[in-house]
């Protein structure tokens, strides 16, 4: 089994406009998705991310700029174990918020030196 990083990407404006009830609903959906991957033995770890970002560059630490204005950002991450990248992508497709177009998940293989 190989490890994969799933980067959860979504429209920040959409997230800002969620009502409290919608937010709870989405958290419940994500919890169920992680639960499924836990029961199938694929989930390794993962957490949602808070707002806030700094960019460390050679000259200084940036706290504003085009990346802050970006419409879409990473709002969470998950590490999964999967047989190959297609299986990892199927795990990502198993998330109902991907299926209904609310979020996108970027699937990246983690380099394994072993």
């Amino acid at each position: 089994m190989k490890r994969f990083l799933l980067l959860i990407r979504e429209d920040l404006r959409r997230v800002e406009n969620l009502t409290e009830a919608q937010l709870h609903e989405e958290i419940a959906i994500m919890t169920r998705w992680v639960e499924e991957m836990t029961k199938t033995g694929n989930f390794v770890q993962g957490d949602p991310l808070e707002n806030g970002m700094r960019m460390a560059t050679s000259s200084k630490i940036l706290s504003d700029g085009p990346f802050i204005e970006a419409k879409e950002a990473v709002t969470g991450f998950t590490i999964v174990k999967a047989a190959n990248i297609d299986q990892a992508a199927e795990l990502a497709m198993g998330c109902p918020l991907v299926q209904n177009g609310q979020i996108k998940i970027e699937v990246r293989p983690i380099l394994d030196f072993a």
Partner: protein
Amino acid sequence: MTSTTAINTIYKKNFSKMVIALAKYTGLRDLATAEDIVQEAFAEAARKWDIQRPDNPEAWLYRVCRNIALNKLRDTKKFEPETSIDEGSFTYQVNTKTEDDQLLMLLACTHPNFSPKNQVVFALRYVAGFRIEQIANILGSPGDTITKTLFRMRETIVKENINFETEVANASQAQKEVLLKIVYLMFSEGAKTSGGRSILNLELCEDALGLGLAMAESPGLTSPQAHALIALMLFNLSRFEARFDEHGDLVELENQDRSKWNKDMIRVAVHHITRAGDGVSSYHLEAAIAWLHVSAPTFAATDWNKIVIVYHKLITINDSPFARMNQAIALFYSGNVIGALHQLKKLGESAFMQQHYLFHMALGKVDSANSKKHFAKAFELSPHEVEKRYIRRTYLE
């Protein structure tokens, strides 16, 4: 029996057998065609059986399938030109052993491009023969999602050129492990109590048990793990009825009427445990935990220390937050409250566990000073009506 119930029973029993029989002619890449043909045959049955029910409904369905298939062969040339569906092999035979065919189908979906969840969906549809809306019901997903998943899987079958093995004995070690896992996951879906007492769930558990037994009996597929998995399933099935009271409300292990546990199943399970030997697969360990529960005369007399040790082994080979949570509960009942609390606190560092109602249920038991608060949180987070009702009635009223 009305013709609708008759058709439903026959559908569950024969849908997958008929689809597999056809798909063996067309190749798995034409699974969609095979499925359409069988659906069409059942649609015709629904139209005609109200007027006159055939003497041998199964044979009737096989004949209709064959005719539709032959027509399609002429119309669309979907089938290989040299293929003809030979009547001898495509007829309903009462005593045919079809488990091998089902295992071949299951084997086809062990392809690594499918996720375990997809494999379960596929097995529920094409091996166990559940209808889409039943699968949606069992898995708690919209029917549309199930349809799309199956569609994507059929596309992958074409793209990756997946087809039936000629015999199950060709299965690799890795495929055998995936087979066991699919059966295990099917059983777990059936054994969950969150949907309340449901006939669908019981059917699913029996299907999974049947597949496990077929694996264990197949010289090419049998393994100590297969026997351990069968034992695990039987231990769980033995408690099936005792998990709900006469109102359909949940009864936790602690309060279950142990005289209602099915002794015959436990006996057969022990036989399979013996045949499983002392391997250390997660099936062996989970079966050992289940055995420690069913063999205890009372809840209080359960050997919690031993259960803690077995969970420790399970976590070593197959770590999961739920195994750690259950170990914490066993620690608590063994008298190690501080150890249990410490373990739960560490688990609580993950956002996932904080959002999971079972984690707060565990905290409610272990952290007795704040139990009301934890049970209230569990109530808020549980997505299941049956469980919400149980939590409210037992801990919040």
